């Protein structure tokens, strides 16, 4: 067993883990942060996307021990409070950018990363390419693309939390 000390959504978490334990399992099973979903466990679908020191990462392709000393953001860390939604979440809600919701946490964190860069989202083709690391089987992506643009507009007014 190896000791891991990591910051998750601003809180320091420490635990003893097996060296082989996946980061996704550590988050879900050990910390109870079940908003991170596993859709393929081979790094394609992007449902398990989290931010590691601000960069998107597949938590199914990382070991828990690799998160030692890092700062992680999961979907649970986005909304400012219980009754509130983050502007990105609000945009997905209003644009119907989700159906079953299983892939949604990954899309939200990818979007967070894209918007935090502060760069222009570019053409639809460029934005769609930037989102192509996340699979969705329900929406056909159209409303996700619109939600991301809507979120960008909201955040350009309020700034990314």
């Amino acid at each position, binding site marked *: 067993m190896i000791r891991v000390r990591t910051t998750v959504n601003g809180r320091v978490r420490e635990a003893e883990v097996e060296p082989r334990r996946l980061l996704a399992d550590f988050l879900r099973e050990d910390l109870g942060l079940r908003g991170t979903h596993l859709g393929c466990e081979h790094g394609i679908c992007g449902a398990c996307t989290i931010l590691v020191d601000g960069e998107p990462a597949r938590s199914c392709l990382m070991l828990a021990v690799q998160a030692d000393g890092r700062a992680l953001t999961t979907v649970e860390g986005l909304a400012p409070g219980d009754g509130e939604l983050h502007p990105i979440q609000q945009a997905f*809600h209003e644009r119907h950018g989700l159906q079953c919701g299983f892939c949604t946490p990954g899309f939200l964190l990818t979007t967070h990363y894209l918007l935090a860069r502060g760069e222009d989202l570019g053409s639809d083709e460029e934005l769609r390419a930037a*989102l*192509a690391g996340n699979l969705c*089987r329900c929406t056909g992506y159209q409303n996700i693309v619109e939600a991301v643009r809507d979120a960008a507009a909201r955040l350009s007014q309020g700034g990314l939390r």
Partner: protein
Amino acid sequence: MLRREDPELLKGKARYVADVVRPGMLHAVFLRSPFPHARIVSVDASAALALEGVHAVLSGADLPGDLGPQPCNHLYHGQRETPYFALARDRVRYVGEPVAIVVAESQYLAEDARELLQVEWEELPSVGDVEAALADGAPLLYDGWPDNVAAVYEAEIGDADAAIAEADVVVRERFAIPRLFACPLEGRGAVAEWDAAVGELTLWTSTQSPHIVRDYLSWILHLPEHRIRVLVPRVGGGFGAKFHFYPEETAVALAARATGRPVRWVEDRLESFVGTVHARQQVVEATMAATADGRITAVTAELLGDQGAALHSVSYGPLWLSAVMMTNVYAIRNARVRARAVVTNKTPSGSYRGWGQPQANFVVERLVDGVARELGADPVDVRRKNFVAPEEFPYTGLFHTFDNGRYASLLARAVEVLDLPAWRRRQEAARAEGRHVGIGLTFYVENTALGPSRKLNAGGVLAGGYDIGHVRMETNGEVIVYSGLCELGQGFTNGIAQIAADALGVHPDQVTVVTGDTHACPVTGYGTGASRSASVGGASVQKAARKLRAKAMAIAGHMLEASVDDLEAENGEIWVRGSRERFVTMADVGRAAYLRPIELPEGMDPGLEAIEVHDPEWMAWPYGVNAAVVEVDVETGEVRFLDYVCVHDCGTIVNPMIVEGQLHGGIAQGIGMALYEELRYDRDGYPLTGTFMDYLVPTAAEVPRIRLAHDETPSPVVPTGVKGIGEAGAIGSPSAVAAAVEDALRPFGVRVAELPITPERVLDWVAQGTGDLVA
């Protein structure tokens, strides 16, 4: 109205089956067959069981002697039985068939233990495709069968042979439709808990059909239905795959009973590729005949359905539906179809959005385009000439009776929305520059509002087509709707809440919809599928809500000393027409009904509750046009969208946002079928695709922006007028994409008769093209 479940989903607070945690819960994994066809000589679990933390290993030999086979609820006349069990008893027939379940303290440990299982196999000869399975001397999957044909279905109207003999033009083609699967982002999973004290089994499972799961478990385990409670947590998409009842659900229940502990199994993606039902795969030889002026006189189709190793929950239903849809929306008086359901050593085939309709649509629409090509006619004109006319409804084709349709006007609208003439001009200009742009425009019809029960039963389906709506108003005037249908992400509970709110005169926020609990929710005849939730489910809830409203109004009228006929209700308030200040609230009514029955009219029973059944008179038939504009790069074989339009009519629309989302998603799946997705097997039945690296689910970069337009022709057979929209997008899109690619490659004389249209195929077609057709 925005969806009520969104905040929970967006905040990561929703609980799917993999998030169900029970005290003392153990974890299960399955050992699956690595062979397409083999005998199991022995399974030795001693080394696995010796590992600390391993609680049980069950294989076929450990199954109770009286355990029933996994049921098939579609028992079409004359089909052969293909019994299979929760775990293979002595023989496996496909790679991925469950052989043993290993139960341990953690999933990691269970996987370690699985490595230690020693299985002695005796390999058997196998077949990996339908044509090989039908060849003389082919290995047989089932002892005692003369061949590998599980069932044959035939139907005919008119005299197809005579019509073909007299025709001016005859188009013949062999179509190959690939093996796909629904592939929801959330795989399957189940958690079972056995309460020995009361003899009750609780199963959390990611399903579309909780009552079917309950009933089947009851038959298999010989437990009474009321001692089985099936609970459905959040479901991460289903698309038909989760309509089915699976061996793993039985095995997890058995493991919970054997260990006395709750047991959770969560399918991983790799096992989903072989463990979850596949779909679609057919070879169809079809013929269409027409007169010189473009009137279609006959269609015939010889269908071979690749069922895989067994007839799963819905038997060969999708293949049957393909066969009877071979006239699509056209008034074709002569038609003959024969469908043969063939078993092969591959994962069983079953449901996926559209059932057999995408295949039939692909075949018929490709043939119609073929007729237009042979006649040098405009494909739009050929379609217009052959539609069933509005005054001909109800119209019966090969089997089904269509409720209504205004096909020609919808097609005209689609031509306008697409701006077909402008695209034809751009196509010409592109060709002049050596670019290959193509336009495909096809027509679909979708079978929705599945019922009626008697028709289903007469066809051999061991299920009804009804739905039961249960509506209750509480003391505080809030409303709870209980439905046996399931929320899978399609958002139907929002529509149900709107329908109930409208009928009752309350605000939708005052309505809670409860689903996914067989102890609380009424039975639905068929489960959540066949685009029936909004239509049949909505109608049953509307009926119940209206009945409840009548009682609430009677109470309110008594309280207000006014005639019921003079009352109006909205947003939970009831007032006397013309004097808005004379009102009571639903909370006042609820209080009287439950706490102060002294305020009720003389002779009225307390309580505010209604249960009503809706069994549709017939199915409903939404329809529409898909129009795709593509550019094909003949150097790389890449197909790129320039435009995509879908114009449709799904009857009355309750929530336009949800309807549009259903179309977007369905069309994306149809584009996957047309261009990317295929579960490939070798000739012996070994899978060649098993990850998202080789099974290509479309991403945002491949799916175009889709332009939608709606018509609204209410269904005459559904009380709300709602037809349904769940499957439409997936049905009509593959044929449109195929037509567009063929149109783009017209200078090469290419015919698109097989999917998916991969770059390799495009390059082959271009290289082999006859080049003898009109440029």
